[in-house]
């Protein structure tokens, strides 16, 4: 096991990793930008090193400074969290050349699954269904027209280097395709530095269902069942749950097996997520792989009883998972609400600012993962996630009730948060009856 690791991240996920390390007896080195100086969670690390000014590009994304911090901090490995450098294969490669363990997949596996287009090709090879679409990148507008005719409208143009729900355009028909193509390529170039576009058939009212996978360096790859993340707004997840309600058992089984097949084909180990969309006929299609621990990992932790972050650290240290697929049993129902510093009354505009008072809910089956404390100022430079509220109960109905109770108990004063939106969703009949797809929240908000 490592003596000491560096956490190349901030906020709630940094705290999450610090907690896992403290339980494993591993010392921690935290990094922080000047905007995060003085954040209370840093006190839980054994050392904290400033790596730059507020802007992420000048601090958390500075590979040279992160590696220097790892060197002066005397660590054996780095946990990249999610976002930032977590899916940067160059960073993983630099760690390897500096003989610093990277707590995640190999750079090669990361690249195989990270490029959306190559991941699709890998999926096809592994017999994993993909959304009907282009065979690789679409080189020109004429090609786009040809592919779209084959695939059938409406189509979705996607940036191969995109992620986090960004870099996508829908074209409902051939007339709309030309401008969609031009805009999508330009956006892709501007946002991701890579203009590559591929095309998929646009699945109407899909459900977003993802499979948590976990592998070790000794050839074992397992799944930890699924999470349903259909409750999204503008492609940003708001609420996640497990199991996916109304998913037929056979579909669930096939999806989990497909995810493991894909991971094996990619030579993947550590934690990762294979994302699918499920159409109204319960057909499932591979979308992409997230080669990192995800925000919503606690949902899977609650239903399976497995600490995913500790597992990642153990795997990176060379330990065997020591589990078979039969050991992974899902029990009960878990729901997570992402509490963001955004104002639902004003189009979700971000509300950075000082939290005057915070009271965390508790009770049976309630978990609140948050780095925020009273007096903590949410900085404007990073994502707006203040905390994650997770509940676990024997049934979905009880989980919804507990989540409502816990949301009402949660007090965050001084900033606006998305709590009112969560309460609105949880009170909604369609949500209760699990008639939710990825368009649900926007339709609900539109009234």
């Amino acid at each position, binding site marked *: 096991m490592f003596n000491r690791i560096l956490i190349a991240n901030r906020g709630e996920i940094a705290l999450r990793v610090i907690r896992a390390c403290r339980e494993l007896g591993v010392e921690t080195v*935290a990094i922080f930008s*000047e905007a995060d*100086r*003085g954040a209370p969670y*840093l*006190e*839980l*690390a*054994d*050392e*904290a*090193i*400033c*790596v*730059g*000014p507020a802007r992420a590009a000048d*601090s958390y994304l500075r590979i*040279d*400074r992160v*590696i*220097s*911090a790892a*060197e*002066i*901090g005397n660590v054996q490995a780095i946990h990249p969290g999610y976002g930032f450098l977590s899916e940067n294969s160059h960073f993983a490669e630099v760690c390897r050349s*500096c003989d610093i363990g990277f707590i995640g997949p190999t750079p090669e596996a990361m690249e195989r699954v990270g490029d959306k287009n190559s991941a699709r090709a890998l999926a096809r090879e592994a017999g994993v269904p993909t959304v009907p679409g282009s065979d690789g990148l679409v080189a020109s507008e004429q090609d786009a027209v040809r592919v779209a005719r084959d695939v059938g409208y409406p189509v979705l143009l996607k940036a191969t280097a995109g992620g986090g729900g960004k870099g996508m355009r829908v074209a409902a028909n051939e007339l709309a395709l030309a401008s969609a193509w031009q805009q999508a390529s330009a956006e892709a170039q501007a946002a991701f530095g890579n203009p590559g576009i591929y095309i998929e058939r646009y699945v109407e009212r899909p459900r977003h269902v993802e499979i948590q996978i976990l592998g070790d360096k000794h050839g074992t790859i397992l799944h930890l069942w699924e999470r349903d993340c259909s409750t999204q707004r503008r492609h940003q997840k708001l609420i996640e749950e497990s199991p996916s309600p109304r998913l037929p058992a056979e579909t669930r089984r096939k999806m989990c097996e497909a995810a493991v097949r894909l991971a094996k084909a990619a030579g993947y180990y550590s934690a990762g997520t294979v994302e699918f969309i499920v159409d109204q006929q319960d057909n499932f299609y591979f979308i992409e792989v997230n080669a990192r621990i995800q925000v919503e990992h606690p949902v899977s932790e609650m239903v399976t009883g497995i600490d995913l972050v500790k597992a990642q650290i153990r795997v990176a240290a060379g330990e065997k998972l020591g589990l078979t697929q039969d050991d992974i049993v899902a029990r009960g129902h878990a729901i997570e609400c992402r509490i963001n510093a955004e104002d639902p009354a004003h189009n979700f505009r971000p509300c950075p600012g000082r939290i005057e008072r915070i009271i965390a809910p508790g009770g049976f089956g309630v978990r609140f993962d948050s780095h925020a404390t009273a007096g903590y100022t949410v900085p404007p430079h990073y994502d707006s996630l203040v905390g994650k509220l997770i509940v676990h109960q024997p049934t979905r109905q009880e989980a919804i009730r507990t989540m409502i109770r816990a949301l009402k108990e949660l007090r965050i004063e001084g900033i606006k948060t998305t709590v009112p939106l969560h309460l609105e969703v949880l009170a909604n009949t369609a949500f209760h009856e699990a008639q939710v797809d990825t368009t649900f929240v926007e339709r609900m908000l539109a009234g």
Partner: protein
Amino acid sequence: MSASEKSGDLFAVKKLRRLIALMKKHDLSEIDIKEADHHVRIKRGGEFVATTAAPGAHAAPRPAAADPVRQPAADAGMLVIKSPMVGTFYKASGPDSSPFVKVGDRIGPEKTVCIVEAMKVFNEIPAGVSGQVVAILVENGAPVEFGQPLIKVDPGA
């Protein structure tokens, strides 16, 4: 127990911890160490730990196990050259070379004042300011973080 160096004086607490551990190991009751502009005096069993990073600065902290070291208040008008990177501080270009600057030296903005080594690259750090060197705030070979004060300069001198 935990030690987030909120003030940025990363090195001091680590050093104090090591000194205290050594004292325990050898059952010493008091040590008094001076080196360049640093002066540490620790009494075991008592409550008093004094450390001064530069002449004129006031003593601050309680035993290192409790709170982080309080940064000595900057004298009015003094400038501080801060580290632009994360790495290891060296006062000279080699172990046998003379230091780039000493207390009392007059320097200009182009003057190399120290090296911060990061990932095996030895980066020469220019002063960026003019004045007289008042204090070297970091020990040779000590780790430094981004923004850490390295050298205090009196611009009026």
